[in-house]
């Protein structure tokens, strides 16, 4: 946490209400995001228990597993999830524009421009919390190596037709979620904590209901009171009144409600009577655990939509569109599912590209948002102030170039060494570079070294005038990576990437998989 964010938390404690840590929205929000609230069975990794899913706030589809140990029910759940999720994900594949990019011709080794498709939009998946993102990854992993009866007629327990495909897409979404600033798969707690600071710890912020209570408390309560109530309130039986859908369920719920309902369901099945009623009862029960988190996600969306979008958000979303398009192409090219483990080269490349994405995100958020820039200024990574003097100077070349000296008055204390490069955003969106030359009391002088056009005289508007406010950063605005191209990990193998190792075998399925 930076000191400026820490201070915001203290302000929240003081006010009994969350305080902003951003003035614009730093993540893309789809017009119609697909919301997924999953529930999992305790003690069994990745075993689904239920889910609410859909794009309509008032009409989620409820999917349930009445007996988590029943392999067929689990398969039916995953098939229903695929039926609900895949049409949405695949619905963005057809509408494309074309973009030009340079590729190395495999035959000649020459870099040549090619025209490639880019989907005009991409699907967005939202889950309640960080644990939900991890759960999407687990679901993806558990499904992508399964084989359908069509793929493998000899498979002992064939997967329903669309399940492996859903596994591949969920894996892709979860993988993409590790790229800083990406928006294909986001958690609502992550979104909200990026924009608001509460008066509780980051650990406690993982409870979406309690986080929302700090940001938008109900009438008559302070955020602090409302959050505490959401977190702790239990009914007479000891059940949580505001279950967080973790995706794990509360142990009290498991022991007092779920276990008896399961037993009733098993009994109904054993006697072959009342099965439907028992199943309906189970669905109702699971809905009580899912619905609060479902509503909370949409409530969070309302709050986020009220913020104006940051200037660079669309540029980052374009990278997400590339990522989506590239995965679409891999599937179309008939490539096997993502491997279990990345080989060393791929792992290193992913790491490097995530580091670049992190630097890019930090730069862009600061440029888009004065409150984020304030944090960078406090850290000595930027400075802002009013121009007090501009002295025109020129290089001594045959055709002299302008090299004006701009002095600003500032209280900021950047960590600058003489000759350090600094960067400034111009009105037209270009970046101007300068060189730090001298510091006086409350004064810093920068020599402009670029962004003034080609002539002897600087183009109008490229040199700030006395009285103007300017902000210089010590960090680059577009750290490595340049224009929005697909990340290396998303370059389809058919587009010149290295062919990976042999496709992984499916997990062996034995009776031992299920108790």
């Amino acid at each position: 946490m930076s000191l400026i964010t820490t201070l915001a938390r203290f302000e929240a404690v003081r006010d009994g209400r969350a305080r902003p840590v951003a003035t614009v929205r730093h993540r893309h929000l789809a017009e119609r995001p697909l919301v997924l609230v999953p529930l999992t069975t305790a003690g069994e990794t990745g075993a689904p228990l239920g889910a609410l899913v859909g794009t309509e706030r008032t009409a989620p589809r409820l999917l349930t597993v009445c007996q988590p140990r029943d392999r067929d029910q689990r398969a039916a759940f995953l098939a229903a999830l695929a039926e609900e999720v895949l049409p949405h994900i695949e619905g963005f594949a057809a509408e494309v524009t074309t973009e030009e990019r340079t590729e190395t011709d495999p035959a000649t080794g020459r870099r040549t421009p090619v025209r490639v498709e880019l989907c005009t939009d991409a699907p967005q998946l939202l889950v309640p919390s960080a644990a939900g993102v991890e759960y999407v990854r687990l679901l993806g992993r558990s499904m992508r190596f399964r084989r359908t009866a069509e793929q493998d007629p000899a498979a002992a327990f064939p997967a329903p037709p669309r399940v492996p495909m859903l596994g591949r897409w969920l894996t892709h979404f979860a993988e993409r979620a590790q790229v800083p600033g990406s928006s294909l798969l986001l958690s609502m707690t992550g979104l909200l904590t990026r924009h608001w600071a509460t008066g509780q710890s980051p650990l406690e912020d993982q409870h979406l209901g309690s986080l929302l209570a700090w940001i938008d408390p109900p009438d008559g309560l302070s955020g602090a009171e409302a959050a505490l109530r959401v977190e702790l309130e239990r009914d007479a039986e000891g059940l949580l009144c505001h279950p967080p859908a973790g995706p794990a369920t509360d142990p009290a719920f498991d022991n007092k409600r779920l276990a008896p309902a399961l037993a009733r369901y098993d009994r109904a099945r054993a006697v072959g009577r009342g099965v439907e009623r028992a199943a309906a009862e189970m669905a109702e029960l699971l809905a009580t655990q899912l619905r609060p988190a479902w509503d909370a996600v949409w409530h969070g969306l309302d709050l986020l939509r009220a913020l104006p979008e940051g200037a660079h958000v669309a540029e980052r979303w374009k990278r997400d569109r590339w990522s989506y398009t590239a995965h679409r192409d891999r599937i179309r090219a008939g490539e096997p599912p993502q491997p279990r483990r990345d080989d060393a080269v791929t792992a290193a490349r992913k790491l490097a590209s995530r580091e670049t994405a992190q630097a890019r995100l930090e730069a862009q958020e600061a440029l888009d948002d004065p409150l984020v820039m304030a944090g960078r200024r406090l850290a000595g990574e930027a400075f802002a102030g009013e121009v007090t003097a501009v002295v025109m100077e020129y290089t001594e070349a045959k055709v002299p170039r302008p090299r004006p000296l701009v002095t600003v008055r500032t209280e900021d204390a950047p960590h600058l060494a003489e000759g350090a490069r600094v960067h400034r955003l111009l009105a037209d969106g270009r970046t101007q570079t300068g060189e730090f030359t001298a510091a006086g009391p409350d004064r810093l002088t920068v020599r402009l070294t670029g962004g003034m056009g080609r002539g002897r005289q600087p183009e109008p508007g490229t040199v700030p005038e006395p009285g103007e406010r300017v902000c210089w950063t010590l960090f680059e605005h577009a750290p490595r990576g340049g224009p929005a191209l697909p990340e290396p990990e998303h370059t389809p193998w058919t587009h010149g990437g290295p062919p990976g190792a042999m496709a992984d075998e499916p997990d062996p399925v034995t009776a031992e998989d299920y108790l």
Partner: protein
Amino acid sequence: MPPRPLDARALAALAANPGCRRRALLDGAGVDKGALAQALGAPAAFGRSQFAFVRGHAFESRVKADGGAELVRLLSEQLGHKPPEPDEVDVPELTAAGPEGRTARTALALRQATGAGRWALLDHPMLALTIAGTPAYLEPDAVVVGPDGGWTVVEIKSFAMIDGAADAAKVGAAARQAAVYALALRGVADRLAAGRVSEQALLVCPKDFSNLPTAALIDLRKPLATTRRQLSRLVRVEEIAAGLPEGVCFDPDRPAAELAAAVAAVPAAYAPDCLAGCELAFHCRERARQAGLVERLGRSVRAELGGLATVESVLAAAGGDGGDPDDPAVAALRRAAALRAEALGREAAPCR
């Protein structure tokens, strides 16, 4: 109420927050903190789902089936040895009366197994360790004795290892717990002047999404050093107790107000991590809130703020109404507040 014995999980948690005298005293004195929290009106949210319990149990018995052959196979595979035949693994009987009896029985079994030059699986042995002056009895899932006289702690966990990797935080917690067992085992080895305690523990988890076991060796050298250091730093329980007023009592049957006063008499060190590991967390959190302590926002917050310990003093320093302006923490806060206000547009920028 019978005192609750200290187990390895409690010890590892204690070692994670060694600065908390409240916990050290209550655990050392065997107070049931869960019951105490309930009596204080701030019950802990810990509980175990019966589904997790049943599955965990089934997994452990599966791993230990076939007279220990499966478990020894997993270990020898990790160590690169040839797995023994099932009849080459001994499973000594360890039942005895009371914890002292079981501890003695375990020591005897360890000596015999070490001398035998064969594989042996000690299922739920009992080990003793004296912590801050209080004896604690510990019950690891298993200890395997190898033909070379090496003793290996086995941790059987129900979280999955997927594609060879498990949740790092959970593995870390398992390693800390295993380190406590290894420390206790070293005591036995020293007393017997036999055996050698391995600096690696065997972690056994379900493989991928199945109920089949898979295993990995976890390095105990670091957690051993940390745990030993932290346990040695724990203040002796008698010393804490000596600092208490006469007649302090933590019996959960006493009235809540009296209990609250008793608890308040022992200094605590609340931080949000307590929520994951200590039954008293909701009570201590509320007290920390009332006292305006900064740690409740996170342990790291304190480090950022130098000597400022309360919310009030931080806000006063930020607002320019308090604190020594020459203190770098105060100066940084003041600057942070000015920059925040400027960016939020509540105040004209100082140089505009």
